[in-house]
């Protein structure tokens, strides 16, 4: 009898855990849609809502979560991670936070009743997920993504395995969100989130390609089996929650069988997701089963560059015209021009993209630019450069103060017309050739002139 009871309890615990994971992922992803959530309390319990919480399911997210969970041999044998990232229209991406659900089998509460105590504890943990998901920096970014339409999009990705904190950058924060002790272990929900939200060329998705882990593509449910990041709100648009309610209500919602039709269909991992803006399409290379980075990025791409310093030559240009002597002289000119342009445009667009960067960031920006001007003139040793935040006089935290406005106006000053007509290398070479021909034709005149000078001197 006791053994039978235990088996039944275990089964119930697994069912509750499965739905706890589904609901947690729903809460997290829906909080990043950019909309306010409003659901109604329902005092008459005619329809069973999991954990007595009104959480409408987004069908895309549910399918995704189900697919991932189905890949587990033991429920929560591995962490279930939900990664929230930001991708700009320029193709830069940045992981904002990682939510991970784990089961700690070393800590358990042997006396907890599964049906009542554990179920209620899971409900409380979900309420904490609701509360905490509103206070991390990613929430504000998500709410502003509609206002900054097209500048960036918030994406999510669900995967099994160890959360990869590396992508959260320096100084990320970790917090325990919820926990539900049970006789079979303690169910934990944690979040780790990025605190430095400024996108810089050094902190973009390119950086990701340099991280190589030997066991990165483990055969058993690692990140390689996860789908690429999906934009949060596209799925939302495609299926309204009311639609889903009808589809997932009743028996299907309560079904625990993993042999749903959707589970059996093969998953195309590298399939791009159609989202607004071409540059937002997830890159295929991230998910190919190889241990080396797909893009062999030149390390020099990631060097910080001083405002007026010369850039090291880019290999691309070198390849095209390597056989032409002295071309490097020309190249530098072109590259500098291009660099000036990109430096003028980028901070503005990325600032617009981030949107939420408050006055703090603005002051940091200005400080950074100031110090760049004053200190860095060499590109060879960018590691030595230490950014000192300057508290400039007359510049308050208010971004709209006069100085701030003036600074931004200077930053966004229109390019000179001479830079607009950007001649190609061949055109420039042709021009020089013509000039040389002209000079050669009038060589006699020059010789006469030099001779006359000599005569005068004598």
């Amino acid at each position, binding site marked *: 009898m006791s053994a039978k009871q235990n088996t039944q309890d275990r089964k119930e615990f697994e069912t509750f855990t499965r739905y706890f994971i589904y609901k947690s992922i729903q809460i997290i992803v829906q909080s990043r849609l950019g909309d306010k959530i409003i659901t109604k309390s*329902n005092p008459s319990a005619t329809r069973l809502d999991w954990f007595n*919480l*009104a959480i409408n399911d987004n069908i895309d997210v549910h399918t995704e979560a189900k697919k991932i969970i189905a890949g587990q041999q033991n429920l929560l044998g591995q962490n279930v991670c939900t990664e929230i990232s930001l991708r700009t229209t320029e193709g830069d991406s940045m992981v904002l936070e990682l939510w991970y659900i784990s089961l700690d089998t070393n800590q358990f509460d042997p006396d907890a009743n599964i049906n009542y105590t554990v179920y209620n504890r899971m409900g409380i943990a979900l309420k904490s997920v609701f509360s905490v998901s509103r206070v991390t920096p990613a929430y504000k970014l998500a709410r502003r993504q509609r206002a900054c339409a097209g500048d960036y999009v918030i994406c999510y990705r669900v995967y099994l395995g160890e959360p990869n904190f590396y992508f959260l950058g320096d100084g990320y924060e970790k917090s325990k969100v919820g926990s539900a002790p049970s006789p079979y272990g303690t169910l934990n929900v944690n979040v780790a989130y990025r605190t430095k939200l400024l996108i810089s060329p050094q902190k973009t998705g390119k950086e990701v390609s340099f991280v190589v882990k030997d066991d990165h593509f483990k055969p058993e449910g690692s990140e390689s089996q996860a789908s690429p990041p999906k934009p949060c709100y596209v799925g939302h648009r495609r299926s309204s929650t009311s639609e889903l309610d009808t589809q997932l209500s009743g028996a299907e919602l309560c079904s625990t069988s993993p042999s749903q039709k959707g589970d059996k269909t093969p998953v195309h991992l590298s399939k791009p997701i159609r989202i607004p803006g071409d540059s937002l399409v997830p890159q295929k290379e991230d998910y190919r089963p190889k241990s080396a980075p797909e893009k062999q990025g030149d390390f020099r791409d990631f060097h910080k560059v001083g405002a007026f310093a010369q850039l090291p030559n880019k290999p691309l240009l070198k390849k095209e015209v390597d056989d032409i002597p002295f071309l490097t002289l020309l190249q530098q000119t072109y590259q500098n021009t291009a660099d000036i342009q990109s430096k003028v445009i980028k901070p503005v667009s990325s600032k617009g993209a981030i949107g939420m960067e408050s006055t703090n960031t603005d002051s940091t920006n200005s400080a950074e630019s100031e110090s760049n001007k004053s200190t860095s003139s060499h590109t060879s040793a960018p590691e030595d450069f230490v950014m000192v935040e300057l508290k400039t006089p007359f510049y308050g935290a*208010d971004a709209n103060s006069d100085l701030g406005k003036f600074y931004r106006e200077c930053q966004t000053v229109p390019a000179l017309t001479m830079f607009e007509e950007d001649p190609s290398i061949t055109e420039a070479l042709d021009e020089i050739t013509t000039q040389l021909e002209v000079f050669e034709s009038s060589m006699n005149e020059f010789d006469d002139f030099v001779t006359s000078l000599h005569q005068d001197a004598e």
Partner: protein
Amino acid sequence: MNARAHVFELSVEERQIEEVVGSLFHTLLLHRTLGKFHYKQEGSYSVGTVGLVDEDCDFIDFTYMRVASDALNLQVKKEIGVFKDTLRNMLAPHSGQISLEFYERKRARWPFQAECIPWEVWTVKLDVLTLLNEHDRQICRDRLGEILTEKVMYIADIMNRHEYVPKTPNQIELDLIFDTNFSDVQPYLYKISHQSTGPSSSSVGTTMRKFIKDTLAL
């Protein structure tokens, strides 16, 4: 039995009082509210669903989640409004505290009166700042958002320790544990009380220290 007590100390502007207290109290109430119970027969009951609403603040860069119940929201708002008015009518510098107390009742037995036993008390102590310029206001606003983030995470931490809450009673004694006056949700019995305190030299000093520290931190 001793009640668990938690205290938050914050420095706010007058216009932020309602939102600061509201965000903390509603986060607490969200964790301490269940769906409405419906007893079918003795010992068996079903539980209703708790709806949720995202609430944006106007004077702080902050959003919190509350229970979807107009009646509950109104009641909390009313209590906080009275607290705010009390602080406003005080002579400067203002300070005060407001508490959210969860309790259970014992039935009255002659000749004794009904007894209320608190089991969890959350107190928010506020120092009201008077800021002179927009720059300081912006700093205060940003800093307050960060502090509230910490507090919400602290609340989540405490709630997930799953310490003592009264046991669910049978139908007859339901109103000794839960507030059954709401038609849509069922929070644990709670009481909001407040008191204003006169200015004291130490509180002024603390406020200034905190304010200067915050300014330097940015």
